[in-house]
């Protein structure tokens, strides 16, 4: 009988193994090389010499969605592009996370106005978003903070203490 052979969800936990896996995932996020607009240049700067995302194990930019587990939506998604972005998200294997980088990806940003005909007002209308990084465009430090935030979401603790305001 099929009902009997089915294992109910959540019956078996590999608590320690899950934690170890999460730690491994958080320290080797593979983002997708996917530049939409202005924010992509700041994403490039984050990956390049000064800011060096490799310090957080996050430098392996992959052009193919099949090899990625992190999608950084950096820029405006317009209605012509939206089906392609959704397809890319669907093509990424689970588990996968999304960072909405910049105001355009969060809400439409400076391109949102009454009677607009072109853009999608926030990428979270297309698929779920884990971390929002505001800014127009956000500084590379802000993107790194977004990645630290995502790591915290994965492992439950923060890699680095929050810098004090002073």
């Amino acid at each position, binding site marked *: 009988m099929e009902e009997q052979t089915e294992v109910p969800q959540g019956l078996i936990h590999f608590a320690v193994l899950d934690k170890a896996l999460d730690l491994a995932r958080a320290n080797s996020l593979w983002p997708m090389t996917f530049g939409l607009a202005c924010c992509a240049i700041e994403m490039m700067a984050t990956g390049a010499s000064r800011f060096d995302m490799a310090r957080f194990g996050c430098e392996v930019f992959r052009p193919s969605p099949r090899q990625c587990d992190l999608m950084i939506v950096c820029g405006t998604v317009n209605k012509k592009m939206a089906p392609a972005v959704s397809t890319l998200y669907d093509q990424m294997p689970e588990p996968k996370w999304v960072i909405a980088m910049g105001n355009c990806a969060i809400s439409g940003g400076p391109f949102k106005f009454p009677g607009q005909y*072109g853009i999608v007002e926030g990428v979270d209308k297309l698929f779920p978003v884990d971390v929002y990084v505001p800014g127009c465009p956000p500084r590379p430090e802000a993107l790194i903070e977004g990645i630290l935030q995502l790591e915290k979401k994965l492992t439950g603790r923060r890699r680095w203490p929050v810098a004090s305001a002073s």
Partner: protein
Amino acid sequence: MSLENLTKKFLEIAVQSAPPAPGPDTPAAEPQPLVVATQHAVKGYDLDVTVPPERVLDAARIMDEAAFMLESITGVDWLAEQQLEVVYDYTCLVSGARVTVRARVPRATPELPSIEALHPGANWHEREAHDFFGLIFTGHPGLIALLLPEDATFHPLLKDFSA
């Protein structure tokens, strides 16, 4: 080719327009061709030519023979007059002189000939103007949407457009 020679050539194809009569008693002035020499430092172009829509191809030929480059094609929607203005910007690569060619078409039938055969760069500019204003360039090899989605049926830069 000097601007004087260009002016002479444009005089043959430009729109004839009479300035409005100054008073009810005085007769209207003789119609003059709309070829205006402008100051580059004030306007940004040296020659302002208005041609009838069916003559834009002749204007393009004059510009091509003078080795001018087509810089852009754009539309302006004059809703009050129920007209669409099409503006062609040409520039000379040697002297930096700039010529603006205008043509006005009625909003109901926005048709004018394509200049794609003479200036291949016009292909995209005309498709863009078609996207934004619904202008129809007859003779264009493929007047399909360029910037808007393929299935778009609206023309967003018309003044009476609302999403």
